[in-house]
């Protein structure tokens, strides 16, 4: 209804490849960016710490899983493991390399690369093993990584409690704190860092998706024999998908520890988290970057909203166990219902709505 495509024509192939081809979309994007950068940091610390930052972290991991599972068709249950690698790498890079050479954004980048390399190692079997059989490799990654960091206390700086708090100085990178006169450990600063990283990596993923690499990923997913007949190296493509995907998970792990909870804790990278992220992916829609974000928002926010409803309407009738169980039931129902009605998840629902709006009032 609001979409006005008349008069929107492309005169070269660059324009035809734009992510937001319509003027209307571009305006919305600019308004959205202004909102995210100027308004959101001024909201309460609670909003940032309980809603926005954690969604950014898990959403990024969902995008990562999407690259591997949604785009390349390689099923993975090791997401939390790769996040764990990212979180521990970031911490250790910050801890062990002199401040002059290391800063949080750089550490995040390198821990992404570490996680990516670990991903490649566990992705190697994918060259020979196909389909569900590959689950065993990603599960091995999940359990091995967890066990590894649990067994070697060096990585936690010999902290016996299994949790290590992140020292405030680690947040102060590039002297920005003094320069801008802000508290870099405060949530607004953490949020801006997380947001910038997420936007940059989302843009990167979107670019990959519409380039040769993305098409190679999808061709391996859709028909690997045809892909190899087209000259695509299937093993290389799969390993690249593992690397990129795990890079994202690694960075997401770093963000989760540093920007959200403020400590490095092994317990949050158990297999449940891999599943939560898988739910986000399925509900959001496989193969769609924006879907991953929608899925992350839904899965993360549902229990919070449900608790809130319980607190305000039913005078706190729902204890945590009820919230958790109901949430699980709702996720399950959503996953099944979406798979039956709209296998593309929220992203497909959104795309259909958009298409309907474009063709409105006609059905096609």
């Amino acid at each position, binding site marked *: 209804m609001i979409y006005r495509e008349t008069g929107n024509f492309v005169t070269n192939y660059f324009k035809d490849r734009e992510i937001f081809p319509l003027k209307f979309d571009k305006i919305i994007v600019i308004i959205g960016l202004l909102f995210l950068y100027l308004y959101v940091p001024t909201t309460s610390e609670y909003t940032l710490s309980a809603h926005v930052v954690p969604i950014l972290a898990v959403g990024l991991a969902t995008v990562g899983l999407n690259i591997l599972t949604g785009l390349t*068709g390689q*099923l993975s249950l090791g997401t939390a493991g790769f996040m764990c690698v990212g979180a521990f790498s970031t911490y250790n890079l910050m801890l062990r390399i002199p401040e002059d050479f290391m800063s949080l954004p750089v550490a995040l980048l390198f821990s992404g690369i570490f996680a990516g390399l670990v991903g490649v190692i566990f992705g190697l*079997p994918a060259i*020979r*093993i*196909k*389909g*569900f*059989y590959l*689950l*065993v*490799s990603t*599960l*091995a990654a999940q*359990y*091995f990584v*967890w*066990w590894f960091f*649990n*067994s*070697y206390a060096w990585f936690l700086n010999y902290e016996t409690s299994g949790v290590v708090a992140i020292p405030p100085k680690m947040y102060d990178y590039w002297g920005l704190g003094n320069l801008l006169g802000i508290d870099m450990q405060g949530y607004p600063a953490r949020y801006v860092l997380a947001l910038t990283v997420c936007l940059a990596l989302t843009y990167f993923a979107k670019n990959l998706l519409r380039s040769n690499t993305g098409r190679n990923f999808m061709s391996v997913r859709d028909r690997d*024999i*045809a892909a190899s007949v087209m000259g695509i190296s299937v093993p290389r493509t799969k390993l690249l998908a593992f690397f990129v995907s795990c890079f994202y998970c690694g960075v997401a792990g770093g963000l989760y520890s540093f920007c959200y909870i403020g400590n490095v804790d092994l317990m949050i990278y158990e*297999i449940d988290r891999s*599943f939560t992220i*898988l*739910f986000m992916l*399925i509900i959001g829609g496989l193969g769609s970057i924006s879907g991953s974000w929608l899925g992350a928002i839904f899965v993360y926010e549902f229990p919070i909203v449900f608790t809130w409803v319980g607190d305000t309407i039913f005078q706190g009738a729902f204890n945590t*166990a*009820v919230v*958790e*169980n*109901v*949430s*699980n*039931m*709702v*996720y*399950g*129902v*959503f*996953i*099944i219902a979406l*798979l*039956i009605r709209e*296998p593309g998840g929220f992203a497909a629902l959104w795309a259909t709505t958009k298409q309907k709006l474009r063709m409105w009032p006609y059905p096609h």
Partner: protein
Amino acid sequence: MDWVYLIEVLVGGLMSGVMYSLVAIGFVLIYKSSGIFNFAQGTMLLFASLTFVKMTENGIDFWTSLFIAAGIMVIFGIATERYVIRPLANQDLLALFMATVGLATFQEGFSQFVWDSDVHGLQMSKFLDIGLLDPAPIFMSDHIPWLDILIPKFDIFASLVAGSLIVVLAFFFQKTKTGLSLRAVSDDHMAAMAVGIPLQTVWAVVWAVTGVIALVAGLLWAERVSVSFTLIEAVMKALPVILIGGLTSIPGAIVGGLVIGVGEKLGEIYLADVFGGQGIELWFAYFMALIFLIFRPQGMFGEKLIERV
């Protein structure tokens, strides 16, 4: 080397392998008949045993509880086929897998929502008066005189149950009409439909049977580890088992279970030091499966795929 100790370890491994196999059989049944990788197997265990335990806790006697729990699992299996699997019949296998992940999540929430999230103990010796299940702490190993080794009595009981379950299943598939239809379906869906086998009925039966197997497996697992959320992890343990076994083969599930069970135990004893830490059984099974699959991607008894193009 202490041979007796080794044999004890091996036997112990075999016994826990049996436990894995019990979970794996349910997996294989469903995979074989419909190609669905049923991730909800673990939550079915939880749901079945929780249902049973809650009934016995409320004073219903053992056999009635067992019967009702089995009935509930059958209904649940049929409902799953009708409302989850059938509407997704033409989707690809990944989507079906995802659906079972959804089913698992739902079931996990549902069973704990309907019953509760507490940890329940289950002592079958309270109900069953079999010599093998003395009221004495059953994990205390018993001396088997002629071999001169110690084996927990419960493990023997579990093996017997598993063995009889397999015999019953074998009979079911070899002799009954439904069983035969199921074998036909697993060979070729299209051909089975063409000769008039009602695919959906067969699937419903399979899901119902799987539900009952889940009950049996659930009770035995619960006896060992208690009835709680941790039962779901049984499915994680069963994964390498069925993958080594080869997804489509019941003998594969059993052999795979034994291999993993024994391998894990041996690994824990002989390799833990190499890795400088305890608890390598957390991941050792997966590595075993992984290395195995690299050499034989279709698993031990799985069918080799010739991709037609």
